[in-house]
């Protein structure tokens, strides 16, 4: 029985290799092994969306992915959304829209929103709410989050 597996990935555009046990989720690997703690744990069973990351162009809850499954994958986390010190329009929209209170769900929402707007640049309110239904927020009542997503969509289309 090997104890640890060598996993080669690309994270936020940079090659990252790590060692992990098969029982460690990608979420545990990101947080405890690699030190990217921006991806949060709220439930560990795929129902809160705080651990949402993008793997090979599609969003997943990283608590329901084994670290070893990430071999060869390209992963985007909240730490990779901004371009250096230039915030992404979605991040700006969340800031200017006061779309966060405690902020623990924010990384998951931003990663999920980015995937939405890449697929659907001009979503309706219903499409936004549907796409984000797997991301729970307990502070905001979603109002300002939905508006921030609408604002970001507008800004990104104008750009």
């Amino acid at each position, binding site marked *: 029985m090997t104890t640890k597996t060598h996993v080669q990935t690309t994270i936020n555009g940079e090659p990252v290799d790590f060692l992990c046990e098969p029982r460690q989720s990608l979420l545990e690997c990101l947080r405890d092994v690699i030190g990217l703690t*921006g991806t949060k744990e709220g439930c560990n069973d795929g129902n809160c969306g705080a651990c949402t990351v993008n793997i090979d162009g599609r969003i997943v809850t990283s608590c329901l992915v084994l670290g070893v499954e990430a071999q060869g994958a390209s992963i985007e986390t909240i730490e990779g*959304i901004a371009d250096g010190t230039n915030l992404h329009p979605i991040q700006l929209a969340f800031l200017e829209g006061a779309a966060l209170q405690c902020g623990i769900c924010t990384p998951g929402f931003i990663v999920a929103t980015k995937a939405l707007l890449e697929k659907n640049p001009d979503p309706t309110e219903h499409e936004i709410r549907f796409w984000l239904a797997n991301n729970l927020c*307990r502070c905001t009542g979603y109002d300002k989050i939905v508006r921030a997503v609408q604002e970001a969509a507008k800004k990104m289309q104008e750009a």
Partner: protein
Amino acid sequence: MTTKDYDRNVVLSTQNDFKVVGTRPVRHDGVDKVTGRAIYGADYDASGLLHGKILRSPHAHAKILSIDTSKAEALDGVQAVVTAADFPETADKTMELGEDETKLRDLRGNILAKDKVLYVGHAIAGVAASNPHVAEEALSLIEIKYEVLPSVMTTDEAMADGAPILHEDQTTEELGNDSGIVSNVAKHFQHIKGDVAEGFKQAEVIVEREYNTVTVHQGYIAPHNGTAFWSADGRLHIWCETQGSFVVRDSLADLLDIPVSMIRVTPTEIGGGFGGKIPIYVEPVAALLSKKTGTPVKIVMSRKETFEGSGPTPGSKIKIKVGATSDGKITAAHAWMAMEAGAYAGSPVGAAAQCVFAAYDLENGLIDGFDVVVNKPKTAAYRAPGSPNAAFGFEQALNELAEKLGMDPIDLRLKNVATEGTRRVDGPVFQRIGAKEVLEAMREHPHYQSEKKSGSGRGVAIGFWFNIGFDSACNIALNKDGTVNLTEGSTDIGGSRTSIAMQAAEVLGISAEDVRPSVVDTDTVGFTAVTGGSRTTFATGWAAYEAAQDVKKQCIERAASIWDVNAENLQMEDGVISSKSDSELKMTLKELGAQLSDTGGGITGRASVKPRGVGGSFCGNIVDLSIDEETGKITIERFTAIQDAGKAIHPSYVEGQMQGGSAQGIGWALNEEYFMNDEGRMTNSSLLDYRMPTALDLPMIDTVIVEVANPGHPFGVRGVGEANIVPPTPAIANAVYDSSGNRITQLPMSPVAILEAFKS
């Protein structure tokens, strides 16, 4: 950069002569939170960190006969195991937990059970290991023998004759009097105003009904967590998500019997609280494990542990009787309320009693409250604790009364509304309050004026919550470039550090961005009570106001000595110190800052306050909904929240509080509940089955901020964090009635419950 001011969020301002207060700057901690850089409790790491896990009771009520930890200790990778026996023996005493008080013995018993377990999920032992998987494996190797006892899960069961008793030494307390009767009723109190019997005699219309609510959870997204490092020098360091770092510190000092000064608590960013992160759970266990291992130990609860092992808000039974004359004047009202405290005394029934009639000027009122222990987790505060339960009853009864009287429900409320000078049923007299203004804003709101959609129902209700004062401290240091650094001790859950900084900025005449606020550890700022009770922007904001006044005074004095003039001749406005008589004498804060070191040293302002003049806040809701008659499912179509903020320091975050409280209230109304099975076990302890609203379950939530200045605060602030969760459950129940003609008297109004009600 400022935050958005949306059309559907209205501020009815009364005072606009501020430069910073009332504006919408981007929050200081925002960038860290949108980039994933902010460090929350579970993110904390330290050299040599061990991971702790907690073994919990599978029984709702049982004697612990024996605990054998030897096999767990022998497991490879396990570093230490602790149980209640590792706590030092200390005499019992009552502890102030900011706004809650509890017996030290109860707190200790809740953190690690000693002789008895009192609920499923009750912590019994802690394990520290090299990784969390090993720690969890070790839990299954701890052998415990139990003698299972019968349990009680509701106030009815607990108050019944011959009910199993949780605490053999608990007798009913009646306002300072020990009844001497061993009972699950920890406390009974009564408030009386006037003559209720006479009042009901005068009534021409009477409504009388019983309402029931069940246990619900705050549902913060970040589970409880804490890291402890008990250093070889005897100092205990804690990093945790808490609503009150000083409460954590002082509780640990009592539990562990060490001096307060030997403990430093560093509050991390906090992933939601809503009252649930006032009590401590894992921190003492991590501390005991760290003492044994000499290394830092981190414990993070799972979601299931968060449901079963933290503090939800209680289920309750509320009986309401209210009578009025035919012109709508309420002649008498009686509220009988029993609330589940959970495993140890201390339900929010006392607060519920002070809220239930708060919006109304009653000549005759009677309130009975019972604090009842049951075999469920010890309840904790949850946003206006107790008040939503009470309002679910009384605010429905009022609508029933209005219907019988043929009155508009808002008109009925306005006819009886409490104003400045109204004596509450619990005794004290209201100072200036905004209940009337909130009701008037509701009546005039386009939502209330609009035609209902065909088939929709509309409901209204209002709710009340206090502000509390309590201790807050703040330090402000002037920098060489005229900016300031502000340190404070109120952990920031929803943007409060910015609303606090804005109050200092207003005094100093500088921008919010030129004040850099930090929430610091317990070594670094004076005692500050919990972030709770709608007090943070009010009280810590006041401390910031006072500390800024201190800075301002010192700046003027320093300028006076630089110019060699009398300080009384100087003033400071918009960040510029100037002479009242000599227009040549002018100096900006930046210019002063640059000279500080050469003119006597730095300037630091400080303040510790315990303010009075606390105002209360009222919030009203208008809700439109439709019901699928075949499935019983409710769709919220339109929702408006209207709340008195006194003065909204940062309107965007006041709106955020209102929208968030509304969403929690809607969840409470529609689907949230602890499903308990026959063994007293919660069967839905996941975020899949504990159904909090998703983005798809809610409409936009429109807001109106009413500003009836609180005369007790320098800027007129009223705390806004809580009252907004109070009206949604009765407003929705009133809308269900409007839509269907069915009165729902039990929460939640889930689809199955609605259909059952329609049938009967």
